C-alpha cells in the first residue's frame, strides 16, 4: 500500500488548511456559541460558492471529460483536515450532499438533469438531503415505517423522519419509504420530494449537544403525493437491485471517511491539549506528558487503520472488516482524546468556552452516525466468527 502524497494532493491539503483556519473554525465556533445552525443567508455560504464548493460531481451530457478524481488516500486526508477545523461546518457546506452518489449511481438520466442540474453551477447556496432515519428506526434501517402507496400514476407517502441534515433548507429530499414494512430492505424505495410539496413538514430544527453548525431536522410526511417519475431510478432499477447489493457488500467507502473525520477531531484535541500544556508550563510534569502521549498514540493508530481501510477500497479489495474497524476505533479515539484533553484542562474545561470542550461534545456523534460502534462490532464479528444476523 502506497501512502505517498503527490504534489497536487499536498497543495489541496494546504489550501484546505488555510480555508479551515480562516473561515471554517471561526464560523463553527460562532454557531456553537449562538447554539443554532449557520443561517441560510450567512456570508460564509457565499464564500463557499466562490471557492467552488456546493457543486455536483455529476457532469451533464456533453461536458468536457471529468478531471481525475483524487485518490482515496487524498480524499481521506482532506476529510481529516476539514474535520480538524470543524466537522459541523463540513456538513453545513452547501451542495447535493449525501444523496448525490445515489442519484448519480441509481437515478435516471432525467432525474440527474432535474435534481443535480441546479448544482452544476449553483446560482445561490443550494442543499439536498437524504432521509432514512425515523424516530423508531436508526441502526435497524430495515425497520423504517414510512409508507409508500401507489396512487394512480403516482405515490402517496406517509410517515415521520428525524435527524435529517439540512432538510428544511433543501431543494429536495430523497425519502426512503417502504411498500410493506414487514418485508425489510427489499420492499424499500427512495422518492424525490421537492421542498414545498403539500403535506411535507413542518420542520423541527433539533437542538443538539454538538455539531451545531449544520441543521438537523425532523419532519412528517402527511399524504405527500409525488409523481411516478420521482421514484429513484424508476421501477426497472428494482428488478436489478439484488445484484447491485451483492456487489456493494464486499467493500465500503463511507465508513473510512467518517473515521477520517474522527481522526481530524482527535488531532485537533491533541494540538489544543499540547498548546494548553505549553502555555501553562505543564509539559515538565510527567503525568501531563503521559496524557498527551496517550492521545497522540491513539490518534496515530486510528489514522493508520483508517488509511488502510480506504486504501483497500481504492484497490477494490474487500474492506468490510477494516472499514468497520476504522469507524469503531476512530470514533472512540476522538472522544477519548477530547475527554483526556479536558482532564488536563481541569476546571478550565468545565467553563464551557474551550475548543476541547466543544470537541468533546462534537466527537460523540462520530460513534453514532453511519452505524454505531456496536453495529460496527457486529459487522466485524459476522466476518470474524460468523456471528449470525
Amino acid at each position, binding site marked *: *500500500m*502506497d*501512502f*505517498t*502524497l503527490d504534489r497536487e494532493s499536498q497543495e489541496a*491539503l494546504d489550501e484546505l488548511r488555510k480555508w479551515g483556519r480562516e473561515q471554517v473554525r471561526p464560523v463553527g465556533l460562532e454557531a456553537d456559541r449562538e447554539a443554532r445552525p449557520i443561517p441560510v443567508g450567512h456570508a460564509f455560504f457565499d464564500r463557499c460558492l466562490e471557492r467552488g464548493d456546493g457543486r455536483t460531481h455529476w457532469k451533464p451530457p456533453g461536458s468536457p471529460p471529468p478531471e481525475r478524481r483524487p485518490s482515496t*488516500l487524498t480524499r481521506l*486526508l482532506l476529510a*481529516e*483536515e476539514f474535520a480538524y477545523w470543524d466537522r459541523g461546518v463540513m456538513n453545513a457546506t452547501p451542495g447535493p450532499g449525501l444523496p448525490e452518489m445515489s442519484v448519480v449511481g441509481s437515478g435516471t438520466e432525467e432525474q440527474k438533469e432535474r435534481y443535480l442540474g441546479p448544482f452544476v453551477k449553483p446560482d445561490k447556496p443550494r442543499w439536498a438531503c437524504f432521509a432514512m432515519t425515523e424516530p423508531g428506526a436508526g441502526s435497524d434501517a430495515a425497520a423504517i415505517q414510512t409508507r409508500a402507496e401507489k396512487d394512480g400514476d403516482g405515490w402517496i407517502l406517509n410517515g415521520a423522519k428525524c435527524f435529517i441534515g439540512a432538510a428544511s433548507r433543501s431543494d429536495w429530499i430523497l425519502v426512503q419509504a417502504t411498500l410493506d414494512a414487514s418485508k425489510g430492505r427489499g420492499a424499500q424505495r427512495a422518492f424525490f420530494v421537492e421542498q414545498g410539496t403539500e403535506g411535507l413538514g413542518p420542520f423541527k430544527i433539533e437542538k443538539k449537544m454538538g455539531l451545531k453548525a449544520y441543521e438537523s431536522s425532523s419532519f412528517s410526511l402527511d399524504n405527500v403525493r409525488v409523481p411516478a417519475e420521482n421514484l429513484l431510478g424508476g421501477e426497472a432499477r428494482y428488478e436489478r437491485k439484488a445484484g447491485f447489493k451483492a456487489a456493494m457488500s464486499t467493500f465500503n467507502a463511507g465508513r473510512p471517511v467518517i473515521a477520517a473525520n474522527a481522526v481530524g477531531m482527535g*488531532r485537533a484535541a*491533541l*494540538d489544543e491539549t*499540547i498548546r494548553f*500544556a*505549553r502555555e501553562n508550563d505543564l*509539559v515538565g510534569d*510527567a503525568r501531563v*506528558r*503521559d496524557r*498527551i*502521549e*496517550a492521545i*497522540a*498514540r491513539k*490518534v*496515530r*493508530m*486510528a*489514522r*493508520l*487503520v483508517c*488509511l*488502510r481501510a480506504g*486504501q483497500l477500497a481504492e484497490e477494490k479489495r474487500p474492506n468490510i472488516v*477494516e472499514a468497520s*474497524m476504522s469507524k*469503531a*476505533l476512530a470514533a472512540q479515539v476522538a472522544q477519548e482524546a477530547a475527554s483526556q484533553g479536558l482532564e488536563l484542562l481541569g476546571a478550565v474545561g468545565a467553563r464551557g468556552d474551550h475548543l476541547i470542550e466543544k470537541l468533546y461534545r462534537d466527537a460523540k456523534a462520530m460513534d453514532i452516525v453511519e452505524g454505531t460502534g*456496536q453495529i460496527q*462490532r*457486529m459487522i*466485524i*464479528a459476522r466476518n*470474524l*466468527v*460468523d*456471528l*449470525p444476523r
Partner: protein
Amino acid sequence: MNLAPDEDLELIVETARRFGEDALLPHIRSAESARDIDAATRASFAEIGLAELEWPEEVGGAGLGCVARVLVNEELGAADAGAALALDRFGPSLYPVLEMGGDVARFVETSGRALLASDLDGALSIGSDRINGSVPWVPASEADVVVVLAGDQAAVLRNGFTIEGVRGAGMRAAGAGRLRIEDAKPDELISSAAGAGRSRARARLYVASLLLGVMRAACDFSREYARERQAFGRPIAHHQALAFLIADMQMSLDGCRLMVREAAWRVDAGLPAEGAAASALAECIEASRLIGPNGVQILGGHGFMADYPVEKHMREARALGLWLGGFDAAIEESGRLLCASDSPLDIGVGGVL
C-alpha cells in the same frame, strides 16, 4: 509510504512462518522447561538464513532493514517468542554497534551470543571507564558479550559481567537470568546521539514485533476455540459479549501492527522514528494487557491449564512488555518528543501496510 512487503521479502516472511509452525510450535513446552533450544532446531535455523537478516552485506549478512525484521519477528513470535530470541544470536544488541559506528565486523565474528542491556529504565550507567549496574531479569541464561546502551553512549563488554539463572516469568525458552556488571572495562565505547536514538527505536520495534506475534497467536487460538466451543446451545463466539470482545481484540491487534510497520518503515527511510517506535511499542504493550488475559478468559478453565498455549501467551506477552524499559520508558521518550514538537501529527504520511 508503502506498507506491503515486496516479493523477496514475502518469501522470507513465508520461510519464517513455515519454520515457526514446523520447527518451533510443536516444541513450545519442552523449550520452555529446558530454557533453551535444542541443537537440531538451532542447526535448521542456521540453514534457512534468517540469522543474518540485518547484518550488513559486507560481513555476510542479508543487509535488510527494520521492516524485514518486524515481519519476520511477528511470524517467529507467533510460534514461540522465547525461541525466536534464543535463535537470534545477537537480538537487538546488534543495533548500537550498527547505528553508532561500532566495529560491526569484529562484533559479528567474535561475539558468539550477545545480549542488549539498556539503561532505558535507568538501571545502568556508563561512567568514565568502568561500568557498574544490574538488571533483575534478562531473557538469557548466558552471553559472551553484553552491549550496554545508556543515553547517547554504548559499551561493548566482553568481561566483567555475570548472569545468574532465575526462574523467569515468560520467554523462558530464551533463558532467564539476572545480569550483574561489576567494574567492567568496555571493549569498545561508542557515542552518537542520533545513533543511540535509532538503536532505541530498532530495539523497541524488535520487542514490539515479537509481541505482535504473541498477540496474534492468542487472538487466533482463542477465536477458533470460541467458534467451536458450545455453551447454551450455540458457539460461545455467537454470544454478543464474546463476539464484541473478539472484535475488540482483533481491532487492537490490527492497530498495533500498522503502528509497528509504519515506524519500521520510518527507520528504513531514514526519517525520525524514535517517537513512532516508542509509541508503537507502548501500544503493543497496552494491547497485550487486553489480549493476553482475554485469550485465557475465552477458554475459561481450559485456558488456565498448560494443555493449551494461551496461558503461555499471557505470561510471555507480559514479560516481553517489561523488557528494555517497557511501557514507562517508551511513553517517556514519546511524550517528551511530542511535547517538544510543533506539529506532532502533522499530515506527512509516508511508508509500508
